[in-house]
């Protein structure tokens, strides 16, 4: 079916699905109008089917070309906005990652420092312990001549205090006592049992210190069991009945 634009009189070739009364936009002048099934269209078809088709074909490609490029232009703009929104979170994430890495590096460095300190202390101890025994392993020139000179370790000991190595010697001592302290804990438990025998309580049971007995004998003469301290006593609770 064909119809003409009421504004620019362009003859339009319509698809079969478009019926009369439907609103369409003229591709040439973009005027919106309702399709009319005009008798003149039939004459127009006869007269200038090609001419009408030609301009229509020429104009149609132009319009789509204008519209699509416009859309394409707008689309890139929209896309350009989206990338910005995407870039910001990415940047934030990158910052967080960098921060995490920095923290990890700092922690690792700290550990390394601690380890290095521990190693240093151990190395100091290892260095110093040998000098006390024999020759100066600490690398101090003063120590080496001393062992070489005299076999007496006593000479080394008095001079070694002046060396910086002595304080570290004390440090190794600290861990040593701590380790022994763990085993000593059991002893306290074992120690409590011994006290009872060492410090007997006054009582009437075996193992107790016998309570004092003070009284008078058959003849009303006063005496006490403590008078016989230093002797083995056989105490006989008796009666004649």
């Amino acid at each position, binding site marked *: 079916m064909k119809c003409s634009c009421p504004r620019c009189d362009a003859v339009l070739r319509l698809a079969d699905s478009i019926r009369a009364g439907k609103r369409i936009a003229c591709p040439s002048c973009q005027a919106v109008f309702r399709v009319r099934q005009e008798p003149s269209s039939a004459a127009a078809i006869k007269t200038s089917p090609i001419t009408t088709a030609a301009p229509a074909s020429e104009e149609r490609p132009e319009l789509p070309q204008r519209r699509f490029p416009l859309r394409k232009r707008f689309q890139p703009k929209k896309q350009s906005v989206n990338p910005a929104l995407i870039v910001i979170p990415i940047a934030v994430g990158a910052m967080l990652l960098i921060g995490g890495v920095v923290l990890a590096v700092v922690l690792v460095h700290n550990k390394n420092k601690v380890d290095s300190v521990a190693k240093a202390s151990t190395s100091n101890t290892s260095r110093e312990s040998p000098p006390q025994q024999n020759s100066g392993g600490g690398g101090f020139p003063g120590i080496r001549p001393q062992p070489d000179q005299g076999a007496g370790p006593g000479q080394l000991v008095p001079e070694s205090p002046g060396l910086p190595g002595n304080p570290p010697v004390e440090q190794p001592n600290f861990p040593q006592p701590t380790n022994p302290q763990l085993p000593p804990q059991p002893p306290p438990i074992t120690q409590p049992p011994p006290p009872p025998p060492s410090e007997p309580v006054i009582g009437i049971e075996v193992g107790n210190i016998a309570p004092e007995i003070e*009284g008078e004998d058959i003849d009303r003469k006063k005496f006490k069991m403590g008078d016989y301290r230093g002797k083995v006593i056989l105490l006989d609770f008796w009666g004649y009945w």
Partner: protein
Amino acid sequence: MFPHERSLVKRLEGKPFVLLGVNSDESRKELKAVMKKEKITWRSFWNGGRDGPISRQWAIRGWPTLVIIDAKGVIRHKFTGSPEGSVLDELINELVKETELTK
């Protein structure tokens, strides 16, 4: 019982040992007669009966009760009822030896 105690006292005369009694009779007069008769030469506390203060302090529930106390005053053995004389001798001899060695 009395014969063994007599022999014990006699045997350990001069040793660091003493036999002390806690008598729970109720009559001094009767007890004196018994001591004379049984030749009981060792001293006894007068408890004034089985419910006397000394037997109560020591929670004595049976007679005789024998207690062996070492030279330091520590109770080493306790018998309710009279043990065999040989057992008593052995324990006392051991403690007397111990006391003599520490002196």
